[in-house]
């Protein structure tokens, strides 16, 4: 078969295109960053999962140890049932506790695992019994206002706006500071 310059150009073009795709896949995208290690599934039930999503991270001591595999609503207990796929390299005691946490103020929601002291290890299909739900900011503010109102009891009406005022002011105060 005779070779022509067109062949060379075609080859170069296709190679460049594939290289670009590989760059997008491995350098820009997450392919290869975490190749699916072998996992085992553990269930955890929460009263409230907040903004947790499927494929969200599971961290212990801040290290990624697994991913959220499935989330569904348990209609008998009225709780969220979250399936965690944990990396086989890591094993946790049976009394490990799981909580829904957020990284930073606006960061992603993740499941945090805190190891307990049990000798037995969590096995596939086990359930994490000690769980802590997501913190709902509105509820937090309500509690704060409530306790504040109880503290200086006599005029409860006056305390509520006073407590709300700094909260409303602070973002406005922060914005010029950032500039």
């Amino acid at each position, binding site marked *: 078969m005779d070779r022509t310059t067109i062949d060379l150009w075609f080859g170069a073009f296709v190679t460049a*295109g594939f290289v670009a795709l590989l760059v*997008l896949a491995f350098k820009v995208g997450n392919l290869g960053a975490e190749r699916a290690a072998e996992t085992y599934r553990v269930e955890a039930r929460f009263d409230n999962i907040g903004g947790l999503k499927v494929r969200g991270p599971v961290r212990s001591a801040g290290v990624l140890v697994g991913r959220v595999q499935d989330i569904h609503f348990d209609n008998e207990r009225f709780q969220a049932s979250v399936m965690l796929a944990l990396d086989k390299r890591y094993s946790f005691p049976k009394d490990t506790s799981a909580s829904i946490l957020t990284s930073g103020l606006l960061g992603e929601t993740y499941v945090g695992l805190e190891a307990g002291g049990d000798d037995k290890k969590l096995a596939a299909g086990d359930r994490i019994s000690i769980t802590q739900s997501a913190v709902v900011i509105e509820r937090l503010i309500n509690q704060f206002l409530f306790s504040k109102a109880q503290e200086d009891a006599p005029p409860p009406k006056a305390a509520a706006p006073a407590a709300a005022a700094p909260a409303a002011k602070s973002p406005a105060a922060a914005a010029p500071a950032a500039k």
Partner: protein
Amino acid sequence: MAERRNRLRRPIATLGHKFVDGVWRVGVMARFFFLVLASSGTSFARFRLVMREVYFSGVLSLVIIIVSGLFVGMVLGLQGYETLQKYGATESIGVLVALSLVRELGPVVAALLFASRAGSAITAEIGLMKVTEQLTAMDMMAVSPMARVIAPRFWAGVISMPFLAALFAAMGVFGGYVIGVVLIGVDNGAFWSQMQAAVDFRYDVLNGVVKSVVFGIAVTIIATFEGYDAPPTAEGVSRATTRTVVSSALTILALDLVLTAFMLRGED
């Protein structure tokens, strides 16, 4: 009285005529599309025909694609930095640049550039072949112009488009890197690690490739059809070339909306 009624009627009649004509063209174009698919056997049996067209529409578009990808990425980097700075999240600049390029700008802008760089050339070439009766001559020699001229150009476009879009996106990310990390001084590790955490291979990269393949099909079908359908005059060819660029651009943007609506569904 009758004249006045006529004067009122004419614009409406013209509008109706244009509409019917448009629907007609869509129908003919659909038939044309299937005809191209039916006569693509030759393109693969004699793949050199396709390679030659990939050279003309793909390889020769490389310069414009790479340079504009670089600039678009750089502009995204600058603009993104300007906005993210207000929230103290400048490390997310990589995420912003990569996601917007891989999901949207890569396929769309590359397709728009491809339509104006290669699509218009295809239309002009086929239109001129028709004017000089080369297509008729081929028919006379029992060579199907569909198989010999149209189908290779179609497949060349479909093959080149994803590669061009990927190159565009990769160059854009590099441009964002140059602005963000090299010039502004965002942390290199955070730039790449946040990007990798946010860009998903299947949802973002592969969907971008799917988009670009669809755009490649749309642009080359429009370009070859306009050329094939052009009135065999100088004016006809010039009009067909204009129409290729305009209708490809509109088709790309409309298709992008539809595809994005399909792809983003069910992610959250």
